[in-house]
């Protein structure tokens, strides 16, 4: 009985298109419904590219879906021998049923760790590793469309969230209620996702701790954890951080960041220098100094807080 219910869930998950109307073979862009700046979007793209490059592949939708969608769909419809169409899990879920039916004739699901993931027309064969932004959007949209907590608990078992440096996490995903719109997600729906994942009877009150919400969701996904890793395999440290104009929540404090570091056992030293500085646009809360030749272009500022890789002796 349980198997039948589970099977029905997967069939309904894919057979019924998520109700966001899409054009024939539309792909889904990062933070698509948000209001992030081009610099912020570029930074997130850099994260995705660099993380998937570690495993030796590129992550994203097949360029044919945007460059020549009609040609592609015609070829699939004719049963031509073509290279399989690679699509992200989010794009698959958001496709209209007819397009999905066609594309599933010859398909490969993208994964940031380059593991093979196939699609049978009703369910995945394999577990795609996807960026957290994609994961929360999938969960958010599914709850918004179906309002079914049980679906959320099943859906979260169909993917893994890719690992990330803590600085990516706090740059994009520690934000208060007022700034959640910037990443294109509805705060109340996210509270509902959290409620579903933790199997709570009532939604938790996040009025005063809204900045914890996305991490609570992250913690309930199957994820490859947050960590600062040394490229050399030896002790490394860095004080490089994103500039405040790249943060989704500009009022983020180093105390909150330190809590995140403590949680993931990331050693750190120092603190943000909280000297206020008047600028043309208003007041800058933190004194920031530039980093020469930053390893990650978006992390080009130092504020006095240094993190250490796990190879380093305990500070």
């Amino acid at each position, binding site marked *: 009985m349980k*198997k039948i219910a589970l*099977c029905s869930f*997967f069939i309904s998950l894919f057979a019924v298109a998520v109700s966001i109307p899409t054009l024939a073979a539309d792909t889904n862009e990062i933070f698509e419904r948000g209001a992030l700046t081009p610099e912020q979007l570029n930074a997130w793209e850099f994260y995705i590219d660099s993380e998937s490059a570690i495993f030796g592949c590129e992550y994203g939708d097949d360029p044919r879906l945007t460059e020549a969608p009609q040609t592609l769909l015609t070829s699939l419809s004719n049963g031509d021998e073509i290279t*399989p169409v690679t699509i992200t899990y989010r794009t698959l879920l958001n496709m209209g049923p007819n397009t999905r039916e066609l594309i*599933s*004739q*010859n*398909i*490969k699901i993208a994964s940031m760790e380059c*593991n*093979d*993931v*196939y*699609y*049978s*027309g*009703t*369910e*995945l*064969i*394999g*577990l795609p590793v996807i960026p957290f932004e994609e994961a929360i959007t999938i969960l958010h949209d599914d709850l918004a469309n179906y309002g079914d907590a049980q679906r959320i608990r099943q859906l979260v*078992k*169909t993917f*893994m969230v890719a690992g990330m440096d803590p600085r990516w996490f706090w740059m994009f995903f520690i934000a208060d209620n007022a700034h959640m719109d910037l990443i294109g997600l509805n705060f109340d729906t996210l509270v509902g996702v959290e409620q579903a994942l933790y199997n709570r009877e009532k939604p938790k009150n996040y009025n005063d701790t809204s900045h914890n919400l996305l991490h609570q969701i992250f913690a309930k996904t*199957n*994820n490859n954890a947050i960590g600062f890793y040394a490229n050399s395999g030896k002790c490394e440290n860095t004080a490089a951080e994103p500039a405040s104009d790249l943060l989704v929540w500009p009022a983020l404090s180093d105390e909150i960041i330190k809590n995140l570091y403590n949680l993931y056992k990331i050693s750190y030293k120092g603190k943000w220098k909280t000297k206020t500085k008047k600028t043309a646009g208003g007041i800058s809360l933190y004194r920031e100094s530039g980093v020469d030749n930053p390893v990650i272009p978006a992390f080009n500022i130092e504020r006095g807080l240094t993190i250490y890789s796990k190879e380093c002796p305990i500070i």
Partner: protein
Amino acid sequence: MLKKIIFTLAALTCSQTVMANVCKDDPRMYTIKKVINKLHTGEAIKPLKITPHSFLNLPPAIRAALGDNVMVYNNKCVPVEIYKSTPPKKIAVAFEDLSNYMHHAAIRDDLIALNIAMTSFKAALKTTDEIVALVSPLNWTTSAINTMYKNGFLKRLPQVNLYRNNTKKYCKGEIALPSSINLFTLLGGKTSDKSKTSFIADSSDMYIQTINGVRADNSIAKTQDTCSGLSIAATHNDLVQTGINIVEYGGSNAHLHNSTKIWLNSEFGQR
């Protein structure tokens, strides 16, 4: 001279053939929907040749639909027929890969795949150095570990360090986290060499070091104030299971000596 050139070319061609011998899934996996439709209509198909990764990733419904129309590549990249969804003989797979496939199956709650992994696959041989490096917590997600415990794939061990009385106080009610070495032994993992490894345990710490200087993660054994991810006794037992050549030093761990022969060997030096 000509012979030499021909021989060199032939050797080069052969080596490239060997190098190119990488197992890859049958390209029909991209069109698996058509394959299943064919089977549903009663049409015969040539068996799909797939890697252990894809074989263990097949969801139950698709596994059932494919039946025995599948062949799995073994560690020599030779496709092996299956009978009633399992290969006739255990297939050796690199431990890290097998652990990863099982991790994914556990996340999906796919008990059929987990059963097949435990009964029809085994961890490939590892050197002593590689085995000692596995003395570390298993890097799986909590939900996957819970699936393993809940369904009896891993034993629920009480979190007890046998030499520290207050461990019971600190770790009351907690369940030991699984370790990589424990999963390796459960998957039949063995050592490929007989180089010596020193094992020193006292009331709270454990020091393991191979003759090549590879050390186990000592931080996991410090159980004074917190619960350790690995107990000394369980780790010792797992190391014995792998067949590595353990050289033990004295101390208060006398009861461990029942399970393995003791060598007192000066080549490792003293603590």
